[in-house]
Structure formats: structure tokens, C-alpha cells
């Protein structure tokens, strides 16, 4: 009955009347969570099967989402919900495993690197062990597999390899015949993520050409340059996938256009857990209002409430002094400083009070 409560209209209506909430099924969550956390309705729970070391500072988390999770396409991301010190955090990660693995045994793999100063990635490494439950969102993102059998070129850097791993495993399963080249840039051998998978794929799937460049071990020539692209046969006809840190993506974009490759041939994506801004970042910054798709520059210590009003939005407010929480609203990314305490927030999605939150660097709010 609990599961239908969210799907069947009359029951759902009744549930709303009885429990005063939009998600009536979740009314029982506090009890269900105590009995079996995989039964909760408020989010899709996933059980951590195991956690294995993958590369330096990088671990793979094998998760088995509850059966009502709807699956994913290769190259997509999910938000992971974890609770650290009583606070719920959302972070986006790319699924490194193939949809085939999920169909086979219901599991997905997230390969996550510790970010220097990243609160949540470090927390996950230090605290999450097999058996634990986290939440997962439905999958999203459009780093889609090619529809036809056309030659492909992947350029990946560091932990940007994760969607590529999912792509390659899927293509190999499909027995994709067109040539596929992967140029993968890492610091050293110890940083190669998914090494085993990659070498195994290269061994059994003849279409794949695998080139790993270790920038710290192999010297300057190992940084992405035109010779690397020159060595890719028939590069102009390839569809290109880019995934990696911004510097690498920019450089790749420039080089590719020199090779006469059109924008429409290139797809790129990169999600890394957002990291906190440096403590000495000046106040102010670009504020994006997600719902109304407006964005404005702000300066100095103007709080978000005033910034929003100056942009002709009408957020709810009351006291304007941090007491009443009428102005509470979702911040989806960026860091804000609390005017009353002087403390910076985390970088992820959370609730903030507009009237006392001053942006520190770029911020996106749900207004």
C-alpha cells in the first residue's frame, strides 16, 4: 500500500488529507528508516555493497539502488544524498559502470576521488563502508552514446574518465565495430582510474585504441598537444567526447578546432564535486536565479534578498534580520557567508536565509 500511495491519484489525495503533506508515503519514513532503511519513501535508498580502492585517493563505491530506481543511460550522473553530522548533503557524481551491469545485478558503480578541501568526498572516503545506506536521485545528463557506428575519439583527464568507462563498457558489449580511440591524461600510473577495466577492454575489444599519458612521469610531451591528435587516424571524421578538468577541456577545444572539427561533432561533460571557495575570496559575485533564469553581478556585502529585489524578483521575506526564516530558500550551488556569524556555507545544495546570506563567488539560488 505504501508504494501505491505515491502513484495512485485518489489514494494520494487521501494521503494528503490525512498526513498534511505532498509526499504522504514519507510520513512513515522515520519508523521505516528504523526498521529497514531500504523501505523509506522520501528518496530512493541505495545500499552500499562494498567500497574498493581504485587509484590514488580514489575509491569505487558499488551501490544497489532500491528496485524502484529507474535506471540510466551510459554517461549519466546521479545526485548522491548522504548525511554527515546531522546535515543532509547532495553531490553529483557520474556513474562509471555500464547500464548492462545494472540490468544484470542491480548495481551501479561510482568512482570518486578525494578532492583537496572537499568536505563530502573526504567524508565519503572516511566514513562510508559496505552495508551503509545512501540516497540516489534519478539519473540525468546528456553525454549520450553515438547512435550510429561512427569513429569515436574520447579525450579524458583525471576523474573525468568515469562517464567514458561507462560508455566504453557499453560499446564493447554492443560489439561496436567503428574505431574508438581514448586519450587519457593522468599525473602518474597511480592515478589511472579504472585501469583494470581499461586494459581488459583493450585486450578483448579490437576496435579500441587506448593511450594513457602520464604527465608527471613522462615529461612535457605527455601534455595534450597536436601530435597526440595527429596520431589519431581519420580524426576529422570522428565524433569527439571530452571529459575532464576545465583546463584540459579548453585546450582540447582549441586544438580540435585547429583540426577542423566542428562544434557539433563535440560533446563534453564534467562533474566534479563542487569545492568550497578559498577563504579569502572577496564577497560578491555572479548570482544566478535558477527558476527565473536571470543572472546578475553583485558586489560588496549586499545580501541575496536585496540582490534579488534589485533584479526585480519578489522573494518572500519577513523580518529582514535573520529571525523569522520567511526568506529561506534553496541555494543550488556556490558559497554564501552568513552576515550574523561571518561563517561561510558549504558549496552544495542547501537551504539558506536570503536576508543574511552574502555571496562569496558565484552562487545559484532557486528563485
Amino acid at each position, binding site marked *: 500500500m505504501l508504494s501505491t500511495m505515491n502513484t495512485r491519484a485518489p489514494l494520494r489525495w*487521501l494521503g494528503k*488529507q*490525512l498526513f*498534511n*503533506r505532498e*509526499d504522504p508515503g*514519507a*510520513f*512513515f*519514513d*522515520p*519508523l521505516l528508516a*528504523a526498521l529497514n532503511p531500504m523501505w523509506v519513501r*522520501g528518496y530512493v535508498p541505495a545500499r552500499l555493497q562494498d567500497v574498493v580502492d581504485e587509484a590514488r585517493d580514489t575509491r569505487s563505491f558499488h551501490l544497489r539502488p532500491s528496485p524502484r530506481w529507474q535506471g540510466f543511460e551510459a554517461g549519466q550522473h546521479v545526485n548522491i544524498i548522504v*548525511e554527515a*553530522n*546531522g*546535515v*543532509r*548533503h547532495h553531490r553529483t557524481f557520474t556513474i562509471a559502470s555500464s547500464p548492462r551491469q545494472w540490468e544484470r545485478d542491480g548495481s551501479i558503480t561510482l568512482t570518486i576521488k578525494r578532492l583537496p578541501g572537499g568536505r563530502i568526498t573526504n567524508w565519503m572516503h572516511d566514513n562510508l563502508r559496505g552495508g551503509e545506506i545512501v540516497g540516489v536521485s534519478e539519473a540525468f545528463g546528456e553525454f549520450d552514446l553515438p547512435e550510429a557506428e561512427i569513429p569515436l575519439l574520447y579525450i579524458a583527464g583525471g576523474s573525468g574518465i568515469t562517464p567514458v568507462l561507462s560508455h566504453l563498457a557499453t560499446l564493447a558489449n554492443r560489439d561496436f565495430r567503428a574505431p574508438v580511440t581514448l586519450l587519457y591524461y593522468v599525473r602518474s600510473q597511480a592515478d589511472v582510474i579504472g585501469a583494470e577495466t581499461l586494459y581488459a577492454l583493450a585486450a578483448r575489444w579490437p576496435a579500441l585504441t587506448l593511450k594513457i599519458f602520464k604527465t608527471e612521469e613522462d615529461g612535457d610531451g605527455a601534455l595534450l598537444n597536436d601530435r597526440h591528435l595527429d596520431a589519431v587516424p581519420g580524426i576529422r571524421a570522428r565524433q569527439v567526447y571530452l571529459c575532464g578538468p576545465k583546463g584540459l577541456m579548453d585546450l582540447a577545444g582549441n586544438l580540435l578546432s585547429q583540426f577542423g572539427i566542428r562544434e557539433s561533432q563535440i560533446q563534453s561533460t564534467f562533474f566534479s564535486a563542487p569545492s568550497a571557495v578559498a577563504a579569502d575570496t572577496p564577497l560578491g559575485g555572479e548570482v544566478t536565479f535558477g527558476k527565473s533564469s536571470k543572472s546578475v553581478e553583485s558586489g560588496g556585502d549586499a545580501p541575496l534578498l536585496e540582490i534579488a529585489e534589485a533584479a526585480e524578483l519578489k522573494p*518572500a521575506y*519577513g*523580518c529582514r*534580520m535573520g*529571525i*523569522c*526564516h*520567511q526568506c*529561506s*530558500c534553496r541555494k543550488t550551488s556556490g558559497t554564501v557567508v552568513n552576515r550574523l*556569524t561571518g*561563517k561561510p556555507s558549504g558549496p552544495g*545544495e*542547501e*537551504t539558506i*536565509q536570503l536576508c543574511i546570506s552574502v555571496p562569496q563567488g558565484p552562487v545559484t539560488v532557486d528563485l
Partner: protein
Amino acid sequence: MKPQLNEQQLNELAKDLDAIRDEVMADVGERDAKYIRRIIRLHRTLEIGGRVMMPFGFIPPVFAAAVASLGIAKIIENMEIGHNVMHGQYDWMNDPSLHSQTYEWDTVCTGDSWRRTHNYEHHTYTNVIGKDRDYGYAVLRLSDDVKWNPLHLFQFANYLMLSVFFQWGVGLHELESERIRRREIKLSDKKAFLKDFFRKGGRQAFKDYVFFPLLTFPVFPVVLAGNVSANLIRNLWSSTVIFCGHFTEDAETFSEASIENESRGQWYLRQLTGSSNFTGSKWVHILSGHLSHQIEHHVFPDMPAHRYREIAPRVEAICHKYGLKYNTGSFGRQYWTVLKRIGQFSLPDRVRARLPAQVA
């Protein structure tokens, strides 16, 4: 007597209170999350237990247990969960089901209406005559600021009615019926509010007085009587707690002009002088949603309420340091002063002046 503090003292007062606030807020985390989740589990257990036992209420002891279970569930949900969550005490947890702006509680008053009239108006303009309508709920005469008229003679009966139907009274608070009577506003101004009121009030009545009785049709009179009793218990208790928090003794009142450009120190002072606490066991505090610590609540409305118990001695020390009264006493004593006050202000001023023991 108006507490007189000079500017420097006010600044120091603000600094002292901010220090407590900063210290507690920096420490808020796992322990507070565990606490509120435990309370929520208790609420769910009591509510489900009460609803399940109710149809067997034709056995008298089961009836008593079911009513107590459901009544206490409603009290906990309204006081310790709903009221506190809506104040934003748990916003930091980032859990959408505990979010101040979307939480909807198990009572007639809509969450939105409460957030406007209580969290914003009452907590921002505490005891500012004309702006804080919680002051006597615009129904009772509790200070000299309201001119006496003969109808006030019956205000004790009014008070009883208000207590019995408290959830409906609170639900209708935003209607500002006294201003409609005075023709300052029109009934049609309140259309949107009334629509929400009927929707939520209907929902509450449907649940307790139609749905659950019908679900257990052969014993519906028992279930209906039980649900009415549970609501009554909650109404009496919550109105009593709230009256004990604000109307024990003459609270200092303020004019609108006096709070213009108010400093943080002045704001704190206003909060301190308008509230009163009562003492009791841990469970008295929990069942009152920690409004037994009304003073602490008014100074730090968005601090997780179970912390009030811990900081109370420090707030009291600060009050003494600045020569402010820290109004506290046993539940019985505080309630007695409330009753006396309601009684005395029902009398014309001339008569009241001759009463032997003045309230204030």
C-alpha cells in the same frame, strides 16, 4: 517599570547573547538531528498507536489509552515538531521534510498563516502594540492599553472558549476580525486567507471527525468521541502553555515609533522583557515544545529548542547582570498569575485598582 539600559549596556547585552548563540550554533549537528528524529519517531508511534487502539475504545481503559496516545501525539507534533521546525530550527539539516517554509502541521491553522502571523509578526514585533496581535490574541484585555468596556466582564468565559477551540482560534487569527469589526479592512480583503482556512480546517475535520469514524463504522461514536477528546486535550494544553509564556505579568509594551532603527541590543531587550518561563521535568519541557523556555525561545527563535534547557542558566545570569527580571516559576504558579490577570483585567480600572494584590 521600564528597564533602563544605556547604549553601551545594550551593546554589551547583545554581545553576551550573541556569544551564547554563536557557541551553540557552531555546535549544532548530529546530536540535534538525532534528537528531533527520535521525537518524530515517538510522534509517529503514538499517532499510529492511538488510531489503532481507538476502535477498541468501547473497552474503557483502551479508550483512555487511545485518547492519551493520540492527544499526546498531536501535542508533540504541534509543539515540539511543528512549531519548532517552522521557526527554522532544523533548516540546517537540509531535510526537505523538516524545512521551515514547507512544513505543514496537524492543526487547523495553515503553516503559511502561522509563519506570517507568528514567526514574522509576533517574533519580530514582540509586544509592539498595534503590530503584535498575539498580544491578548485581540480577544482578551490583558493590559491597560485596551480601554475597558462592559463586555470585558465576560472575558473569563471567552478565555475558556478560546482554550477549548484553540486550534480554530489560532486558525482564524489572521482574519483580524477585530479590524473587520472596526471597518479598517473588509472581509473581501481576506478571501485568499479564508480559502486556505477552509481547505485546511476542512482537511482536519474530515480526518478526525469523518474519515476515521467512518472507517470503523460500527464503532464510529467511540472513534468520534475519542478524536474529539484528543483534539480537546491538545487545545487546552497548547493554549495554557502559550498563555503562560506571555501573559503572566505585565510585560513591557512598546510603540511602533520606538522600534524604528532599533539596535540588536534593543531588540534583545524587548524579547527578554516580554516572556516568562515555567519550570518542570524534562517531559513538561518536551510537551510544551520547550515554550516553557519562552524567554530563551524569544531571544533565539531558530535555535533547536532542546538546547534552551542547556543555556537557560546562562541567559538567566545575563539577565541578572543587567538587572533585568528573569520571569520564571513553577507551572502552577505561573498559570495562576495568568488566570488572575485575565480576571482582573475583566474588571473596570476603578475596581481593579482597589484589589488587594496587584498582578503587576
